[in-house]
């Protein structure tokens, strides 16, 4: 098939994306220039009033810090757990490798809402962790593990782990086992070999996975909302609040675009930083 005819294969997907993504995004940008009247109804206009309101509000600043901090901690936590798993999957000769890989990405197959309720059962006041700790006499009163930042960070880390494992596996290309053998034959202990060879060579994979995990965390809504128990405020939950509870569409639109720009800025800076590192 010639290239000219080949491109028609893209048509269904292109139409679909246009209909459900590009068109509403345009709507989003349009709404950002509208205002909300005193009655709460949307006033169609072309002004920057809503944008100014959002940017001047200290709460936006708090939300931004919250989102960044939550995404950073969830990403680091998930990375610390995903990296060894991915390294194991990449390296193992076990005949169960395929099965283990499926188990590792299994959480992707379960609805986010169901997973959150799973975490409630584990981390709740009478959940698995607290009752075990209490029955061993480690603590007298239950630890507050849900409906706060701790719970959200744990839940979020778990939900992004499968994606990060996949990203790590995809990024491990350069990691040649012979290099580790060379390092050991030259007298480096397994630990030194990890620090001097394995870790430096997996930096590109780590960057890829961290980037993906961060973006996913920034846009996560269900986990902060449900595991946060109304006490955790981030950009994503606020956008949802404004759009549904307050039906303040202009405000929601401005916040959504604000988040988008924030992520794009982070993406560009991290790319520039990565390029600088490579030199």
């Amino acid at each position: 098939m010639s290239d000219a005819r080949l491109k028609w294969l893209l048509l269904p997907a292109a139409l679909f994306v246009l209909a459900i993504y590009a068109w509403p995004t345009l709507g989003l940008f349009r709404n950002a220039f509208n205002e909300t009247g005193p009655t709460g109804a949307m006033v169609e206009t072309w002004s920057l009033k809503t944008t100014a309101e959002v940017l001047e509000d200290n709460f936006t600043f708090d939300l931004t810090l919250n989102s960044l901090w939550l995404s950073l901690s969830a990403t680091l936590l998930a990375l610390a757990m995903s990296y060894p798993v991915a390294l194991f999957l990449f390296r193992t000769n076990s005949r169960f490798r395929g099965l283990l890989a499926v188990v590792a990405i299994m959480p992707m197959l379960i609805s986010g809402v169901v997973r959150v309720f799973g975490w409630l059962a584990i981390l709740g006041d009478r959940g698995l962790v607290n009752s075990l700790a209490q029955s061993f006499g480690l603590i007298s009163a239950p630890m507050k593990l849900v409906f706060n930042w701790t719970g959200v960070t744990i839940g979020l880390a778990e939900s992004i782990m499968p994606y990060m494992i996949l990203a790590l596996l995809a990024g491990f290309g350069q990691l040649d086992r012979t290099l580790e053998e060379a390092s050991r034959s030259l007298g480096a202990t397994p630990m030194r070999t990890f620090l001097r060879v394995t870790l430096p060579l997996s930096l590109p994979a780590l960057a890829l996975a961290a980037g993906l995990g961060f973006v996913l965390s920034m846009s996560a809504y269900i986990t902060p909302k449900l595991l946060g128990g109304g006490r955790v405020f981030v950009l994503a939950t606020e956008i949802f609040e404004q759009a549904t509870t307050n039906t303040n569409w202009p405000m929601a639109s401005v916040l959504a675009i604000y988040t988008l720009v924030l992520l794009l800025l982070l993406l560009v800076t991290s790319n520039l930083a990565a390029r600088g590192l490579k030199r």
Partner: protein
Amino acid sequence: MSYLELSGLQKRYRDSVAVDDVSLSVEKGEAVALLGPSGCGKTTTLRMLAGLVDPDRGAIRLDGAEVTKLPAHKRNMGYVFQSYALFPHLSVARNVGFGLEERGVAKAEIARRVAEALAMVRLSGLDRRRPRELSGGQQQRVALARSLVIRPSVLLLDESLSNLDAKLRDTMRHEIRSIQRSLGITTLFVTHDQVEALTMCDRIAVMHRGGIAQIGSPEDIYERPATRFVAEFVGRANALPATHDAEGRVVLWGERLPVAAPASGEFDLFVRPQRIRILPISEAVAEGMVRVTGKVLRSVFVGDHVEVLVEGAAGQIQVELQSGTALPQEGAEVALVWQARDTLPFPRETA
């Protein structure tokens, strides 16, 4: 006791035996080749020596001390990998200095020894390059320098020349051999290339199906192969089906040969193509020579030699003549003559 002793080494993998009862003694300063086809267990043997594979059975002794269970990083063996395994994120100098840094050698000393090692492999001035900026031959030299700079007890080379083009391989062969000799470093060399084994080593261990088929000097291996496999694998040889006559003498192509052969059973006579001379059919030959006759099927000029294929009463014989000699006419009736002692009988392989 020898400097390096392998005794009864065995390694099994899930469903196959990779190395089976390999014993080998290597003297200090000696270069020994492990020669064999792929899958014969030569690389596994080398990896067991380096501590990269644990043997299931057997022992490795180095300079009188048992090292069988010693982890790789404590063995002080220089391993040059087939793929060179240079660290892509480190400069040439850091690659070469890697082992010294791990040994806690002082910085100035490292710089001095790295420069020395790079000079030895003729790479001075490239120390700041990254491995990917080097040619295959240069990478090979860096890998060699990296293994030598730690002053290893034994140098292990795993098919180290197989990724180079033919000409470079030739140069590196001589270079490695002369470095090995001048440092007097004990070396084990894994290869499937007989020329490499024959030219670079004091002794050759021919490996076959996980075991050692024959150990000996290059000359021994080539001139006096102990088994049919060795005769076939090292150098080229005609395998000529022969029979006994009523008096028990060996008969080939209808001619009685002055050759000793197994008393019974089917067997083949092995003759190297370059040991055979082609003479006019009328010419008489001396006592103790083998002489059979046939017709020249074709002659091929290959540059440094001429390959002649002669068809006789029961099969074909390949002859290799030095070029410069007259090319035998195709279709000509000729006599093939060789020394009786160049004829090696081996029982027919029963598959």
